[in-house]
């Protein structure tokens, strides 16, 4: 058996695939967080809750309304987007003129409220969600059994990240978004409806998180706390990548997932610490993050 630092290559490779899977979620979530921050200057604590709501929406749609997983993949993000739009219009909007920290505290409160409500109705324990039949098999890759569903999840998440990146970099809508990030007053002069753009951005970021939630549902249990613990790792991802950098969000998300997997192989107790240790090092060497520019 081939060994790498005393670990069989086979075991290493399979752990890296799992790491990539987790990294795909980090990337998807930090991407939405980054887009929202870029435009609204809000550190969206509710992001983890959006992810949870996405998963619950899929769970409820499937269990009580008989929707298929594929339908949920489309509808649940829209539900989350609608929720996000309402929150932005009714609450978040009123804080734009104030210290940005109020936005952080407000979204923190909303996250707790959503989490608490879900806990009240569904309990802390996870709800099961079935993998769609077509993806329920596994492939023997030689070094591991890869569940088809996990492969699908990695592929879709990366595709969505890529798509978002292309939109922001290469379309006129993306150009407007980038301009609004620089100077929202300028855009108003050009006739862009900035308030609407802000609502849409928040809703879009929420939809990305909701999508991640649906993708997560069949693998993890659907539980009220699933997003709460994830969001803090995602914060570390965002700090490492550099807030406001789309590329940074995607690259550092995937990187962190795989590094975490490596940690699990070589020194399991450190696995949970890895994202934060890397963050501390990055903050020391490059305070603005790996891909961050000036503020």
């Amino acid at each position: 058996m081939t060994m790498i630092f005393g670990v069989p290559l086979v075991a290493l490779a399979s752990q890296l695939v799992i790491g990539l899977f987790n990294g795909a979620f980090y990337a998807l979530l930090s991407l939405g967080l980054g887009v929202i921050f870029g435009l609204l200057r809000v550190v969206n604590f509710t992001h983890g809750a959006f992810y949870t709501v996405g998963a619950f929406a899929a769970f409820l749609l499937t269990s009580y309304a008989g929707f298929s997983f594929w339908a949920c993949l489309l509808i649940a993000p829209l539900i989350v987007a609608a929720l996000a739009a309402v929150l932005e219009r009714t609450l978040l909007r009123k804080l734009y003129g104030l210290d940005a920290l109020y936005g952080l505290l407000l979204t923190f409160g909303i996250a707790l409220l959503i989490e608490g409500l879900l806990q009240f109705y569904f309990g802390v324990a996870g709800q099961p969600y079935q993998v769609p039949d077509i993806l329920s098999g596994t492939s023997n890759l030689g070094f591991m059994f890869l569940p088809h569903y996990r492969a699908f999840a990695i592929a879709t998440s990366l595709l969505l990240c890529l798509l978002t990146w292309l939109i922001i970099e290469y379309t006129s809508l993306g150009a407007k978004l980038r301009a609004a990030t620089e100077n929202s007053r300028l855009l108003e002069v050009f006739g862009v409806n900035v308030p609407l753009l802000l609502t849409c951005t928040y809703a879009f970021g929420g939809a990305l998180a909701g999508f991640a939630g649906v993708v997560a549902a069949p693998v993890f249990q659907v539980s009220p706390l699933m997003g709460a613990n994830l969001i803090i790792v995602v914060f570390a991802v965002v700090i490492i990548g550099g807030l406001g950098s789309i590329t940074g969000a995607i690259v550092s998300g995937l990187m962190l997932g795989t590094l975490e997997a490596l940690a699990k192989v070589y020194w399991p107790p450190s696995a949970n610490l890895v994202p934060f240790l890397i963050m501390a090092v990055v903050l020391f060497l490059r305070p603005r993050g790996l891909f961050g520019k000036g503020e």
Partner: protein
Amino acid sequence: MNNKWKTLLGAALLSTALPMAAVAQGGPLKILVLDDMSGIFAANGGPGTLLAVQMAVEDAGGKVLGRPIEIIQADHQNKPDVGSAQAQRYIQEQGVRAITLGGSSAVGLAAQARAAEAKVFTLASGAYAPNFSEAQCSPYGFQFAPSTQELSRAVTSRIVGEGKKTWYLIAADYVFGHTLIADASKSIQAAGGKVIGQTLHPLNSNDMASALLTAQGSGADVIGLANAGTDLETTVKQAGQFGVGGKLAAMMVYENNIEALTLAASKGMRMSVSTYWDLNDKTRTLAKRMMAKNGGKTPTMGHMGAYGAVTHYLEAVKAVGSDDPDKVAAKMRELPITTGIWENPRIQANGRVTYDMLLVEVKTPAESKGPNDLYKIVAKIPAEGLFRTAKESGCPHVK
């Protein structure tokens, strides 16, 4: 602005009206059901345990020594600090006299420590760490649930006997998982097997992929699961996805876990239990009454144990003629357990309740005659020699 102020003033006034410690002598006898009511163990114990306690009180006539019996419930959320504070508060403010313990053993042990100080009874009906009747025993503590030692022994020795010698253990990182690992390792070695690795995971984890792959990579014959509740369900489910389902051996499985995983997914799994609803006429009668009230869910050994524990406590109070803790504790050890839930039950000086354990196997869907028909009883393991004796327990109260 005015309204804001009124609300705040109201809240401030309310806060001054907090109840003082009021232990009314001769008032109702209060029993606290301290359990995980909404978390990962809620289906093992939780609301079902509350129902069982209510039925036990009902069957005792709702009264003892002319005093009404009041049941209070609290959700400790599997957090030791929460459970400990709740136990303390209900003892000091409400004068609770007995507490049933279920859910995380860490919480139960914290609560038992507080209760022992106040001479309050603790009935561990759904808590499985051996510590309740061993190192951290209480003169007023009684463990009706089997401990990790008994749970692991029957399963591991049988599987090692089949020639599967190397084990990798996946455990929840708290007192229950730790003791289960220790006890399982001991019995695996005793049977001639070997533990080649272990992974601990936090309570309520949602991804076991990495642990399972590490276990698989270790090349062990058996992946032993020393976790419980939904953690167990997650592990079994994901093991199936990664193609290692055939290697699993679980040590702590409840009927509700089987129902969640379905018979098809868990058929043939073996574990040991203290009792099963389809054991005898008495268990069947009790279980059918419970099912009538809980929507047909199969009662677990935790639920039936809570019924038996509270019944026994109330009988002892009645026999003594007062709720004097020392007298009742002595009487509980002396009186025979009559509920019929367990076979050959006895109470040791350290508060450990012993009985013959059952080794059961999950039926295949074809074998099952109905939604509640889950296990076939493979063997009965006599209490003698299975449980540690009071002397061996290391309980400091046993002289």
